[in-house]
């Protein structure tokens, strides 16, 4: 499904000395794999997702999606198979456009956009049906501009839009982090629902270690641009958060008293 072969990415800093954001990252995903991605701030999680989506070219290595080498394809040419939801609910939708217009654009993911009507009557029925599955009452507000929605509603819509045209791969980058705890949980449940319904592979970045173990089928941990831990079910289902930290320290061969990951666990 997704095959990453030895990806390297260095960001040039203004001071001149570059920063390795991805170091020899290889990863292979099967269809229906649901991978949670953890790691401290600056570990390279977002960079990994951006490299897969094609936001920037990688320095070396290969990105293969569904047997096709997309390493040199620009972002917009990969979009037909990749759905994304960002951390900021503002980023996943166009605020000045209506709910139905946003969904119509998502329905055309990766397809040619011509001069036929943007939203047809048939689309509208489909959108209403899809929106009602969210249970937020959005199906009655098709014509309202998206900027009138709350952050949680907007994120739910973004999630629906990301999966509307059945992408093969779903990339979620801390997509509940900007929401209040209750809304975050609702969006998380919605995510699992949507993933269960469609057959697709998922990479989900989260800072919540408990969540990372509770959902999905596999967990990878990144540190300083490298994947330092990769566990799958059934082994993973036995793990606890402290096991995870233990394994992290083993992998890095270091034991920091004020580990940033540890601090983040405590906040949840």
């Amino acid at each position, binding site marked *: 499904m997704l095959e990453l072969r030895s990806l390297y990415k260095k960001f040039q800093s203004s001071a001149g000395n570059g920063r390795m954001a991805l170091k020899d990252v290889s990863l292979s995903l099967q269809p229906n794999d649901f991978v949670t991605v953890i790691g401290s701030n600056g570990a390279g999680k977002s960079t990994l997702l951006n490299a897969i*989506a094609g936001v920037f070219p990688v320095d070396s290595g290969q990105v293969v999606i569904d047997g096709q080498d997309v390493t040199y394809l*620009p*972002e*917009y*040419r990969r*979009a*037909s198979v*990749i759905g*994304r939801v*960002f951390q900021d609910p*503002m*980023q*996943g*939708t*166009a*605020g*000045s*456009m209506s709910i139905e*217009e946003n969904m*119509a*654009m*998502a329905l*055309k*993911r*990766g*397809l040619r*956009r*011509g*001069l*036929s*009507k*943007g*939203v047809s009557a048939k689309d509208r029925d489909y959108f209403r049906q899809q929106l009602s599955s969210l249970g937020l009452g959005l199906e009655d507000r098709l014509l309202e501009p998206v900027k009138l929605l709350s952050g949680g509603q907007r994120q739910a819509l973004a999630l629906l*839009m990301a999966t509307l045209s059945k992408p093969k791969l779903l990339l979620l980058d801390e997509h509940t982090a900007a929401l209040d705890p209750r809304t975050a949980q609702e969006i998380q449940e919605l995510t699992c629902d949507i993933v269960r319904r469609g057959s697709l592979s998922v990479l989900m970045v989260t800072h919540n270690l408990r969540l990372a173990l509770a959902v999905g089928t596999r967990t990878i941990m990144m540190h300083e641009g490298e994947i330092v831990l990769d566990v799958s079910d059934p082994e993973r289902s036995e793990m606890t958060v402290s096991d995870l930290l233990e394994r992290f320290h083993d992998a890095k061969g270091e034991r920091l008293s004020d580990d940033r990951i540890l601090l983040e666990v405590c906040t949840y």
Partner: protein
Amino acid sequence: MSSALGAMFRVLEQGLVYAVMAVGVYFTSRVLDFPDLTVDGSFPMGAAIAGRLLIGGVNPLIATLCAPVAGFFAGAATGALNTKLRISNLLAGILTMTALYSVNLRIMGRSNLPLLRTGTVLTVMEDMGISPKLSAFLLFCIVIVILKLMVDTFLRTEFGLALRATGDNELMIRSLGVNTDSMKIVGIGIANAQVALSGALVAQYQGFADIGMGVGTVVAGLASVIIGEAIIPPKSVGMGTLGAIIGSVAYRLCVFLALRLGFAPTDLKLVTALLVIAALSGKSIKSGIGAEGRKASRHAGTEISV
């Protein structure tokens, strides 16, 4: 009394013919969120092309329609400078505008082309038996209604939605598989096609094309858009284009009143600039009070930089 009425009628005609340009400025500044200065060059280019072709004896309708074609390429050039060569949006427009000054002089062959003895779209109307008193008004009404319907319809097509999303949230629409560079190039092209059409019509209306007639077009267009937004809140695409049209007429009325108040015609650019500054500062004060959001401040910033 009747002379005052006649004057108001002239204001209305002007408002409508410049509205074609204002809708173009609405297109770039509001739909694409791109502050486009090409307009100061593409407007006289439309006039130059139509003027030169009319003097060459070309059918007025064809001469007029050649203007938007050239305008499209002028706008597309700015879009390409910005997206392909990564030149900032303002500078890209300035570069095209500057280059167009020479191009326009080449097209015209000199700095002023009188069109009083050539046939124009207006004489064509008159030949069809329409009174010369009404021909300009009727023609401009027809043009602006057709244009508005075309723009509104276009912005609701699949392509149009992607274009609007490019102005609203580039990151998101790119993640949905749209080449936002192409969108900007085509979008700025379409806007300048409208501006050049307006220039071609204005030249025929006033009876000459002049190399200097583009100065201040962007600001006049922006003034129209801003005044229009104050009169009609742009809740939808249709309201936005309607606002630009009504704003254009209102702006020409302001100009007319300023002249009546005793401003010299040469002071009008200053008056217009002050009008736009006043409108923008009112807006930024309002949004400064109400919003601390990133989006709000970003918008205030672009509006002022326009």
